[in-house]
């Protein structure tokens, strides 16, 4: 899966916006959104929020966790823990990336927020790399609890493919030409040839 596909999945995450326009409910297939009343917060999918923001039709209300103090705590927890800490959002990287690229004016201390999110990502990536070793050196399965889809996807294709190959190395090799047959087949074939020639 490429990152854009993961982003596609993450874009259905609901985000609170403050519209600058009025509109009745819009019946999308993925669910109704609205009604929109200027300056009243309302939840919409991330892809709608991004679109409205780009058209300057709303302000974004950043999710609670997108806050310097909270993120600092999260970062410390991630550093202190051997396991992966549960993230406040299944798609924290996607929300972070999209909102920080289009709505910096709506996010307090946006630059700091961006840095800490990146720090957390880096810490988790480093953890992931060191845990890969235990996978490669013998275990037949690996726990990936609390990893977000973008993080899981960062392991693809290398880790699963490497595990596939290790499995192959342990197995008996399948053969394309069945040898027990080939002797008899050799003679059989030529005799069928003979019969058609005669």
């Amino acid at each position: 899966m490429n990152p854009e596909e993961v982003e596609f999945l993450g874009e259905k995450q609901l985000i609170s916006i403050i519209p600058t326009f009025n509109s009745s409910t819009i019946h999308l297939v993925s669910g109704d959104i609205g009604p929109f009343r200027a300056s009243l917060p309302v939840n919409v999918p991330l892809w709608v929020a991004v679109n409205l923001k780009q058209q300057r039709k709303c302000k974004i209300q950043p999710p609670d966790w997108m806050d310097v103090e909270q993120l600092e705590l999260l970062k410390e927890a991630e550093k202190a823990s051997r396991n992966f800490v549960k993230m406040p959002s299944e798609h924290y990287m996607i929300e972070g990336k999209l909102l920080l690229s289009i709505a910096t004016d709506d996010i307090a201390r946006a630059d700091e927020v961006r840095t800490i999110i990146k720090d957390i990502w880096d810490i988790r990536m480093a953890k992931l790399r060191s845990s890969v070793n235990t996978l490669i050196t013998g275990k037949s399965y690996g726990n990936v609890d609390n990893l977000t889809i973008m993080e899981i996807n960062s392991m693809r294709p290398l880790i699963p493919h490497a595990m596939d190959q290790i499995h192959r190395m342990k197995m008996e090799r399948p053969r394309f030409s069945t040898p027990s047959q080939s002797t008899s087949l050799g003679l059989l074939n030529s005799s069928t040839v003979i019969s058609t020639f005669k």
Partner: protein
Amino acid sequence: MSLCYSYTPNYFSIEDILVTQERIPSKFLVNVPKLGKLNPSAEENDIKQGTALDLPFWLADPLSFARHPLISIELPRVYKEAYREILKADATAVDLHKLGLYFYELGLYVKRLDPRREVEAILLHTFRSRFKELMDFADDVVCDPVKQNRLDMFERTLFQKAHFSRMQLKSWLNNSEMRLEAATMVINHKKRKRIDVDDLF
């Protein structure tokens, strides 16, 4: 396209056909009349019992693996003890590409010749000890060709796939929009055309 399979050989696999082209030490147990051509260094009509030849694996395999084998085969030297010791000591220091283009794939074929499973163990050991380096290497934006040249074909495929997806992730982390690209074959086609035109001058 969107599905990403890991390598598994099949009847039509180009890789597997190239792997089975590798030669392995063989010795004829019987006379084979009329097929002297198999031995390029002799001009006799027949192959005599006891003749030792390096046969391509695709031929050595069916002739050796049957109820009445025509030949006996042995491990290629890179899977024998001397080389196993080198790999055991430090597999990351070895230029695997030099050892054999298809070190792992051929190894998987010939490991049955070693009932003590030491070949299997050395394949696993080699792969595992070199893996971390491969993973780091896939993260480098600019690939060092010297490093790449030390990988065997199988490691190289794995590396290329990993490198491609790591670079996708890197560019996702840095940019906001993905560029839509012309289809791969269309790009190749254009490149080729350009080369053709260059040839004219």
